[in-house]
């Protein structure tokens, strides 16, 4: 009896020791809430196949950057890339991980999804408060055959600082000199007009409730809430709708090869089929981390994601990185990450 207990304890100890050897270090990450849904899917699948647990806290891009700088997590995730100079100052490296897009959503009675379309400057003028009603000639000229009501336009923006806002206003700055000089860009800006909703869900709720409302959300929120998103004219002058193909086209046409530390905001991407407000989530890690073992696990996690995570990403309306970009990231890891 006693010996059987002893042997059991020994067995348990052995199992624990083996588990300890087999298990790589658990990984912690924090940041972008945009990437949170797919990140949790990936970490569940990764855990099933490798037993390594990835804890991801969805605290917002700014929080993610602050946490990785303080080295309290193994990786930070941000919707806006850090400048190479900032990265160098802290000894950090970064790479894109998945692609998504921001879409204008409207609530104009009688107009369904994809029926309305804007050019960048017209969208900027709406958000500047210069175009005030839906039947404004500037909107009517872009939408022949659509009956536009005289309803007042109510602009809805994010009230909290957000990577979604960063990408949206970055695009407006690229297409409208007046926006660039008057409002500028950032995760939060001084909005000339409109009301603020908290989170993608807050903006979606306001736009759905307010007749004549226009806002911007991630595509998945627009699809889940069955909202009327609008088409856009891209940098090549072509009309495009927001979907996986147009997001992928933007990612493929972006000039990643010449972007140092992948510092590239994909908005207003060239290419005939590119969606103009496409965005990527960036992962930020230390090049020489204090805890090399868990950083190595984190790197293995993203290697696994690039290999096996595409289906999950597509299911949740994200777009996986193009293969050429993944190869470039692998090369970057080999050259820069010393663990």
């Amino acid at each position: 009896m006693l010996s059987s207990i002893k042997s059991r304890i020994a067995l348990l100890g052995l199992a624990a020791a083996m588990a300890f050897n087999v298990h790589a270090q658990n990984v912690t990450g924090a940041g972008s809430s945009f990437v949170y849904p797919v990140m949790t899917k990936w970490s569940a699948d990764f855990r099933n196949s490798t037993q390594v647990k990835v804890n991801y806290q969805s605290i917002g891009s700014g929080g993610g950057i602050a946490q990785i700088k303080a080295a309290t997590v193994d990786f930070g995730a941000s919707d806006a890339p850090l400048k190479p100079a900032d990265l160098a100052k802290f000894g950090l490296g970064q790479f894109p991980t998945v692609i998504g897009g921001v879409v204008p959503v409207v609530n104009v009675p009688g107009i369904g999804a994809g029926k309305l379309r804007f050019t960048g400057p017209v969208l900027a003028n709406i958000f500047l408060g210069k175009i005030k009603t839906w039947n404004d000639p500037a909107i009517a000229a872009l939408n022949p055959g659509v009956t536009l009501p005289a309803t007042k336009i109510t602009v809805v923006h994010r009230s909290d600082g957000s990577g979604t806002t960063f990408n949206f206003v970055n695009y407006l700055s690229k297409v409208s000199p007046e926006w660039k000089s008057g409002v500028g860009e950032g995760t939060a800006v001084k909005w000339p007009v409109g009301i603020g909703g908290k989170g993608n869900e807050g903006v979606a709720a306001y736009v759905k409730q307010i007749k004549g409302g226009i806002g911007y959300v991630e595509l998945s929120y627009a699809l889940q809430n069955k909202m009327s998103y609008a088409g856009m004219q891209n940098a090549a002058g072509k009309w495009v709708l927001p979907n996986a193909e147009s997001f992928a086209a933007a990612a493929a046409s972006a000039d990643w090869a010449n972007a140092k530390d992948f510092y590239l905001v994909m908005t207003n991407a060239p290419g005939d089929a590119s969606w103009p407000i496409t965005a990527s989530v960036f992962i930020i890690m230390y090049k020489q981390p204090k805890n090399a073992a868990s950083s190595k696990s984190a790197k293995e996690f993203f290697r696994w994601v690039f290999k096996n995570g595409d289906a999950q990403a597509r299911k949740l309306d994200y777009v996986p990185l193009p293969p050429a970009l993944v190869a470039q990231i692998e090369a970057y890891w080999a050259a820069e990450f010393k663990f």
Partner: protein
Amino acid sequence: MSTDAALAVPVMRNDKHDTLIDLLFRSVVSSAGIFVLLALVGAAVSMLWGGRLAFETFGWQFLTTQEWDVPASKFGALVPIYGTLVTAGIAMLIAVPVSFGIAVFLTEVAPSWMRGPVSAAIELLAGIPSIIYGMWGLFVLAPYLSEHAYPWIDEHLGGLPFLGPLFTGPPLGIGMLAAGLVLAIMVIPFISSVMREVFLTVPNRLKESAYALGSTTWEVVWDIVLPYTRSAVIGGVFLGLGRALGETMAVTFVIGNAYNISASLLDPGTSIASTIANEFGEAVDPLHKSTLLALGFLLFVLTFIVLSIAKLMLIKLQRKEGR
């Protein structure tokens, strides 16, 4: 004689024992009292310290400017302060009479079988998390206001002399008025349960004497119950006001989060607490973070001022009554 001696010994022993127990008891309750003081001072000092960069940068202008520009790092606290006061004011205008009605109903009018369930319902309402009120405000109240209430208010009250500008605006369904309404519903349980408790402390013989003299229920409530419980009732009202001033999540959802001061209650605005909730997560710039902490300190000061005014009012009232 012998009995005296027999008594004396245990009394002496008990005395010592009692002194020790008493000393222990005193030190436990005093440390609880000191703890709350320390927590208060600690919170105030740490917010002031965290906000020093903002106070140094903007000085007194921080209180009087409307600018709120995150990329340019220009911040003024006037809009959030205004929104906080206005929404809390609307909430109190609605919540105080309604709570008074609930408390009077429960203590004087309701049949006894109803008192238990309604009191329990009020206490349950007080336990609902504020984000639930926010969600309800956003998904239920706001669409209703925008469809029915706001257009009606705009049409019927917008033309009033003097008060008209308060009630003209687009039918968004969100804004200062919506935030005030949600806040009112949130603070009603607090105020009404305090009122009910203190109304119950009024001695029955006082009320019965008044009834015997032919008073109506209203006269009993106004002339007997209310004067008897005045200070506790005002205390309950200010407990509700304190909560309305500091409420965060529910207000964030329905106030519209726009940095502008508008005469109209139908227009969106922002409050101190909702500004902090919205921006703290992404406040990377030290000045921005410091500004949000400074706002927290201002909310603290604002609440302190409001509560001091309440205390002064109470003292004045008591003096007038010659008590």
